Structure formats: C-alpha cells, structure tokens
C-alpha cells in the first residue's frame, strides 16, 4: 500500500509542476496565436472578395 501512496505523491507533484509550466507557455503563446488567427482570417476573406 505504501508503494502506491509514494507513487501517487510523486506523480501528482511532477504533473502539477509540468502543468504550471505549460499554463504559462500556453497563456503567452496562445495570445500571439489569436492575433495571428484573426490576421489570417482577414487575409482569407480579403482574398475571397477579390
């Protein structure tokens, strides 16, 4: 039983740290992606009009 407790404790901490790091990256890069997405949609709709 103690094996599983230690296993889940280590698993929990590692995943939590990984997630915190990913959350920071996604928050910053995701914002840049949104700007890119709208620029691209503007461009695509502009091309369709032409």
């Amino acid at each position, binding site marked *: *039983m103690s094996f599983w407790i230690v296993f889940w404790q280590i*698993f929990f901490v590692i995943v939590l740290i990984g997630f915190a790091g990913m959350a920071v990256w996604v928050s910053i890069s*995701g914002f840049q992606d949104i700007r890119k997405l709208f620029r691209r949609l503007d461009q695509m709709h502009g091309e369709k009009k032409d």
Partner: protein
Amino acid sequence: MNPLQDPSILSQTHFAAVDWLIVALYLSISVFIGLKVKDYIKDMGDYIGAGRALGTALGVATMTGTEMGLITVMYSAQKGFTGGVAAFHIALVAGVVTFLVGWSGFIVAPLRKLEVLTIPEFYERRFDKKTRVLGGIMLTLGGVLNMGLFLKVGSIFIVGVAGLSHTGWALPAVMVILLLLVLVYTVLGGMLSVVITDYIQFVVLSFGLLVAVAFAVSTLGWGNIFDTVSQHMGRPGVDPLAEGGGFGPEYVLWMIFTAGLVSCAIWPTAVARALAAESPKVVKKQYMWSSISFMVRFMIPNFLGVAAFVYIKNHAPDLEAAFFPTQGEPTLDNLYAMPVFMGRMLPTVVLGIISAAMIAAFMSTHDSYLLCWSSVITQDIVAPLRKTAMSVKGRLKLTRICIVVIGLYILYWGLIYEGKDDIWDYMAVTGAIYFTGSFAVLVGGLYWKKASSAGAFLALISGLTAILGLGPVQQLLGFQMAGARVGLLTVLFSLTVLVVGSLTFPDREPKEV
C-alpha cells in the same frame, strides 16, 4: 432532524455578493466576445473549423478548454471522493495514451491530412454516403445522450459552492439561466467564439485550479490527505488494481480505452481541434503538449474530490452525517461534496474567481459540444440526404436551430434522469454507443484496405449494444454487469463485426483515401 431535510446544510460558504459580481462580470465579457467575433463568420469552415488556422498553443488551450469543462471537474471530483487517490490512474492513462497518439499521429494525423471537417465526412470519403449518414446518427445519438446530464451537474456546482438550497427551485433556475447564456453565444459565434473563450477559460481555470490545490494542501496537510484515505478506504483507496473498491484491472483497461484513446483520438469534440489545426505536424505537437492537460483535467479534480472526502471526515460532522448517513437514511448526492468543500475552504474573492472559471469551463464545454453535435446533424445527416445542395446560409440556420433544440433536450433530461451510476461511468457508457463502432470503422478505414462499406455499416450499428451498460437499462432487462465489462465487450464485438462484415461483403470497387 435528518440533515438531508435541512435546506441550510450547504449554506456555510464564503461565497459572498462580491463573488456574484465577479462571476457576472466574467460572463458578460464572454457573451460580449461571442457577439464581437460574429462578424468574422463568413462560411461553414469559419463557423465549425475556425478557418483551419489554429496554432499549437491556441490549439492546446482550446482543446484543454473544451475537455476540461466543469462536467469533467465534477465527475472527476466524484471519482476521487468515492474511489480515493486510486482514481489518479485515470489521469495517468489519459496522459500517456494522448502522448502516444501525438507521437505516432495514430488516427488524428491522417484525418487532418484528408482535410475533412467531421468524422462522418471521412466515412463517406472512405466508404459511402449511407455510412456517413449512419455515422452521423450514431454520433448524435451517443453524443447528445452523453451530454444529457452536463447542465444538471454544472448547476449542482453553482448551487453547492454558492450555498443555495439543494431542495426547491434553485437547481432548475440555475440550469435555465446557464442554458440561456450558453445558447446565446454559441448560436452567434460558432467555433471562433469557442476558441477565444476557451483560451480565456484555459488561463483563468488553470491558475484557479492550481490555487485551489494550494489551499487544499495547506488546509488539510499533505500527509494527512493520503493517511485519511488509506485509513477509511483501505487498499482500494490507493491501489487501482485492487478488487473490492470501485476499480480493478478490468476498469483500468476500460479507462485506457475511454479516458485514453477515445478521449483524444475518437471523441469528435477533441478530434475537431485536430481537424482545425494548421497542419498534420501541428496536430502531433498539439497532442503531445495536450497530454499534460489531459492528465491534469482528471488529476486535479480527482485530488479536490479526495480533499473534500478528507475534509468531511475530519472537519465537518454535519456533512459527514449527510454524505455518509447511518444505514437506511437517504444520502446527499455526492456531486455536492467538492463544491461544498470549496465553498467552506476558499476565501471570498478567490472563490468568485474560481467559480467564474468553473462556469466558464462549463460554458466552453457546452458551446463546443452543442456546436459539434449540431454541425454533424447539418453536415452529415441532413445535407447528404437532401436532393438539392444546401446553401451556406441554410446550413448555418439549421445548425443554430439544432443547437437550441439540443439545449432544450439537456434541460429536460437533466430534470428527469434518475440513474444511480457515477457521472463518469454514465458518460463512458452513453458515449460508447458512438465510439465503440466508430473506433472500429476509423481504424479499419484508415489502416485496413479490405474494410468495406457493409462491414463499417454493421460495426457502427453494433455500438448500440453499449447501452446495456446503463443501470436503468439493466434494471429494465433484469440483469447486472459492470459498465466497464459491457463496454469492453462492445469494443470487441464491433471490431469482430467490422472484420467479418468486410470479408463477407467486400466492396465491388474498394475506395482508398
């Protein structure tokens, strides 16, 4: 007095007027965005595929935003509450399998390469129109039934965390208000508003959940959480392979398939993100990164459910009497455990921010699911069956009507369904109506040249046997079998049907994609 009859049992919360204000402000911003991005919707590709222009980080955010909804938080917390830390195995298998799917591109990369908008569209390209229509019907049936309890469960969170009465009209009233909010901005904005609000939700919810975990650990004590679980639940509370608890080897295998493979590579709302990505290469990267959030979406709520259990056992005798009554007395629905715990543990303002994030999570899941099922009805059932081509305007209008109709159905289903299964198990079984057959057809269609239209058609129908896993259906038919076993047998059955059907009735002119 029976604690369950006391309407004030949930009222000891720190949720105050300022928290309502935070929630209202957040929701107003979401609806405003839904209205704002409406101008960018020019065609069906924009509406349901966001122009196929999502970058990796935004793809990860929107995939997480959709898949880490309030419903996920609630059913995972319920699993932690009833199954202890052994429930973490669901998170582990979900993360590992998602990573492997991303690494190999299994199913998702070839689908994206084909540039289809929906999975049934692939069925037509690979097989024929009738397979597409049947695929659309099965998907809608399983999917809509699957989301039938979302509205109720999400509303239970709000009632629990805000300390409203669990008896009377509070729950139905919250259900109606939430439904109206979701319908307004899904109908208006489509996938673009979904993507943007998913991103905002990702940011707020990610940091909100991390804060909630920190509060739970500092309130209850790290070691004490694990000690209390092993003391009250014994070995099954920590070892997922132990029999006698809620899990065991068969259940773990079922989770590898459902929480792992299906959640990321078969379930259409997740696959929709793959299909909206810039390229197959971005899809693979997106999946490898998302494996972390696929793990977290189960793990953190599991942990909060476990923390709620520990809190109730050690610090709240009134709640213990309601959730674990002496024999014969009615039990308070254990879905209330996590929100009530959060309401008592977190301070005002923090509670408002986390509640706003949770409601946002609720909305982002609903909008994606409503959009997904209704676009399948339009694109894969109605449009292929019509003799004349449907205009873009007609398709958008029909999709929006379907969104409203499905919304009304989930309100109705949430009010009448009385099954006793854990929500996650209910969802796995109802979803299996679609995904067991779909798994066989997708794998066969993409990787086996001899897979035929007849085999695919029969495999899709065979998925219907999964409904035997539901408690009320078993009661009706007078037998009992674990949902996990029914699900695994249905997977094997569908695969067998595909192989036998394809070999017996091969296509005259086999199609390749």
